[in-house]
């Protein structure tokens, strides 16, 4: 079976496929950052007066949610549009990699949240707008990955999954709006008056946010490079078979 991807020129992935120094530096930075964030969150930050140590989970919960709902799914959405306009499979691979990382961080959010909520709210789960929207979001992007898994690589898969990524992304605010018309009990950190956090806690949170974003960028680059190489191998194999 020939894939439509065969029409892509071989050179287009060459530069991206090569290892470069700064990617390794970024990886090292992420590693050190995560270790420091662990130290800050688990040992350095003051214990929360009411909730106790369980509150520390929040330094990983919120940054994961931020990475997934912020850059990860937005990049997937934007790159899907760029793919449909430019028809360059590179953008499809970036969208897929970003969505994949987004699903991973959404999963972390959905796992850490209930662990915190059980002692604090007295229940693992409530049908609060943010929780419900995050869960629906998780389903949408898992569906996106399922769609990709059930189709052969190439332009057809890229077209279909781009269409789904666009519709799915537009659906998210509508889901949030529709569920918000119930009462919300999720802690609201950032209100009109700024952050309602102790300065040292705020520092740990900000540090953690930065590190998670860095980690996202690193994972994205590595994953896209891996996909680039994979499609290059596929095309080389086809050329070899045709000879």
């Amino acid at each position: 079976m020939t894939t439509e991807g065969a029409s892509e020129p071989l050179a287009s992935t060459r530069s991206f496929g090569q290892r470069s120094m700064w990617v390794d530096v970024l990886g090292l930075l992420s590693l050190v950052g995560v270790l420091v964030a662990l130290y800050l969150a688990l040992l350095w930050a003051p214990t929360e007066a009411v909730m106790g140590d369980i509150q520390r989970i929040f330094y990983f919960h919120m940054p994961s949610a931020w990475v997934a709902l912020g850059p990860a799914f937005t990049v997937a959405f934007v790159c899907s549009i760029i793919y449909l306009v430019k028809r360059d499979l590179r953008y499809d691979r970036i969208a897929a990699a970003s969505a994949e990382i987004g699903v991973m961080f959404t999963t972390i959010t959905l796992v850490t949240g209930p662990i915190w909520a059980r002692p604090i709210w007295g229940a693992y789960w409530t049908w609060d707008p943010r929780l419900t929207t995050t869960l629906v979001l998780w389903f949408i992007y898992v569906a996106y990955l399922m769609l990709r898994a059930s189709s052969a690589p190439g332009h057809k898969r890229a077209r279909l999954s781009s269409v789904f990524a666009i519709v799915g992304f537009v659906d998210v605010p509508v889901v949030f709006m529709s569920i918000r018309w119930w009462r919300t009990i999720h802690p609201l950190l950032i209100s009109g008056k700024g952050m309602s956090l102790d300065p040292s806690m705020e520092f740990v949170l900000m540090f953690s946010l930065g590190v998670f974003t860095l980690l996202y960028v690193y994972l994205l680059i590595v994953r896209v490079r891996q996909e680039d190489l994979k499609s290059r191998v596929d095309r080389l194999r086809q050329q070899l078979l045709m000879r």
Partner: protein
Amino acid sequence: MGFLSRSWAIAQKDIVAELRTRETVISMLLFGFLVILIFNFGIEPGLREENLVKPGVLWAAFTFAGILGLNRSFAQEKENDCLQGLLLCPVDRAVIYLGKFFGNLVFTAIMGVVVFIFFSVLYNVDLVGALLPMVLILLLASVGFSSVGTLFSSVSVGLKTRDVLLSILLFPVMVPVILAAAKSSARVLDGDGLGAGSLWLGLLVVYDVVFLAISVMVFDYTVEE
């Protein structure tokens, strides 16, 4: 022939085919009835909060039965390469999308209304008072369901896991529609009338407009060769 009448011609083709085979709507209806029947065994008889559960039963039946029609929508075009013929029509791709959408809308809405009548008999709903407002809600929900549903039916039709995939793709995106429809019909079934749920009706209308527009715009990419 205008834009809409061309689309209607495609919808008519589907409706005529359905009238001759009677495959899709009958199976949708039976499936919807069965969902209601099965839900019935999960609900304690004489439950005090029965009124809170009812809309959920109706909309679960609507969703599950509706997906059957969507599964058939593009699958039947694949048989004998009908889709090729359809795409060769000298019309805009948006016309083809709207045609398939109208066909699905007709089937889904008919299924919805009949399933509701069946439901109202079994759950002692005041049919005469509730029918008109419920038809409006069912129609709005059917537009939202069929608009994205027709698009995703076209997305999933050429893939290995076609039928299961369509449900997995469609259900999460349908959350606002089902939520708004269940909330507004809960008001109607409580005897409060349509006005009490106007916020939710507004949401349905917004959803319908937004997703019909997006679907018309991106449908082309799903059938491109």
